[in-house]
């Protein structure tokens, strides 16, 4: 599996978050109204938190893959990882914030040297732990081969990207050899009980379009995936989530290079679904970056738009977070397009 280089490593202009925000608010995206004005039209601006149930922790941008559409700009050349003291602050916040879910993401969270410790400590709090695994990490190196058993012992819920049930589409987006490795990893997970009908071990897959289009119907795609993965590989899983590609980092780079930025933003705007707004994940999630800063979501994190509250995990303040107004910008049209999009799939 040949990985290319991150935007940061390339010294790309898009490595600047200010520049990305500037583009998203410029004529380059065409005639797109301000997202906050769309919210105001339905009396939903400012957007506020409804509750806090999920702490999504990005433990670092290091990854064994360099996927074409990655909004994180993760890759093997990224060295940013969370320190253990910051992880301890996260565990404290989990307890004091009464969160019911810890959502671990990256990069490849499994590559973090304290990953297992973090999961075990979180497990002591009797909450749900989700690990966003890219699957290929399980087979990338012998030291990760025990992860399926580790996940099982700690009752981890696994959510993994599989752009499609064919090699050509998956490898086109995530790199040569990813599909084959993903199938191998899924079989390993099925073998220990993940995704099976009578098992409590949850294995979910994530679909995102391989081009500048929106997703089709989530349930229809889920049925297709289940049928094909079972027929072709005898692989089972629980749910499929559809996610919209966000015009951030490498996907923004792709949109610019393919001269699709204006069309894509227009597509997102045309598909604006006001019914998706009440269920937006920023209303019940707080995102933590590798260096401990707080964001309304992973996408705001990648654009370095910090929360409108005490914004570091060491100053975690539940009241300040519950009373905050959520920071929005033009990329938010991605989460309100069509059936809406979130880390848990379609919103409506």
């Amino acid at each position: 599996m040949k990985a290319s280089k991150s935007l940061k490593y390339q010294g790309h202009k898009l490595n600047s978050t200010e520049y990305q925000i500037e583009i998203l608010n410029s004529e380059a995206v065409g005639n797109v109204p301000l997202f906050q004005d769309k919210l105001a039209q339905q009396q939903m601006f400012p957007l506020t938190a409804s509750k806090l149930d999920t702490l999504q922790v990005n433990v670092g941008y290091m990854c064994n893959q360099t996927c074409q559409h990655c909004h994180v700009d993760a890759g093997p050349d990224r060295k940013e990882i969370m320190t253990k003291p910051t992880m301890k602050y996260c565990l404290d916040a989990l307890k004091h914030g009464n969160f019911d879910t810890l959502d671990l993401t990256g990069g490849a969270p499994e590559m973090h040297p304290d990953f297992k410790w973090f999961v075990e400590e979180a497990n002591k709090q009797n909450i749900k732990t989700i690990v966003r695994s890219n699957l290929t990490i399980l087979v990338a190196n012998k030291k990760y081969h025990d992860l399926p058993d580790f996940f099982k012992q700690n009752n981890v819920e696994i959510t993994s990207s599989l752009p499609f049930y064919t090699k050509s589409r998956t490898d086109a987006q995530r790199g040569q050899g990813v599909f084959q490795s993903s199938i191998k990893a899924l079989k390993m997970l099925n073998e220990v009980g993940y995704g099976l009908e009578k098992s409590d071990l949850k294995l979910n897959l994530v679909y995102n379009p391989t081009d500048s289009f929106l997703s089709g119907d989530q349930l229809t795609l889920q049925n297709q995936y289940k049928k094909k993965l079972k027929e072709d590989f005898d692989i089972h899983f629980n749910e499929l989530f559809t996610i919209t590609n966000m015009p951030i980092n490498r996907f923004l780079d792709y949109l610019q290079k393919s001269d699709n930025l204006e069309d894509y933003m227009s597509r997102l705007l045309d598909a604006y679904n006001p019914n998706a707004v009440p269920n937006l994940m920023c209303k019940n999630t707080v995102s933590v970056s590798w260096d401990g800063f707080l964001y309304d979501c992973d996408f705001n994190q990648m654009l370095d738009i910090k929360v409108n509250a005490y914004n570091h995990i060491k100053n975690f303040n539940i009241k300040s977070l519950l009373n905050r107004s959520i920071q929005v910008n033009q990329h938010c049209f991605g989460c309100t397009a069509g059936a809406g999009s979130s880390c848990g799939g379609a919103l409506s």
Partner: protein
Amino acid sequence: MKDNYYDPKGLKNFSKIKDFQEPLGSKFFEYYNAVFKEGGLTKREKCLIALAVSYATQCPYRIDAYTVNCLENSTDKTQMMEAVHVGAAINSGATLVHSV
């Protein structure tokens, strides 16, 4: 539309067919939306049929719209091309049959 008859941005103006004939335009859209609802055929199958017909009738707006719809419904490009050939076969057959 200075140099071309077709402007891709024109696709967004399709609803303007109601401008001079609102009742008929509305009836058209009601019928159109009903046709494309999931029924005995899935939305995906209907998109592929629409794609084939779009090519056979050579409407660039419909070609644009249904190419996107097919891709959004996770139809791959080999399947789409197969549908285009179905349209081509029917269209050319209609030409040839008049020779007999």
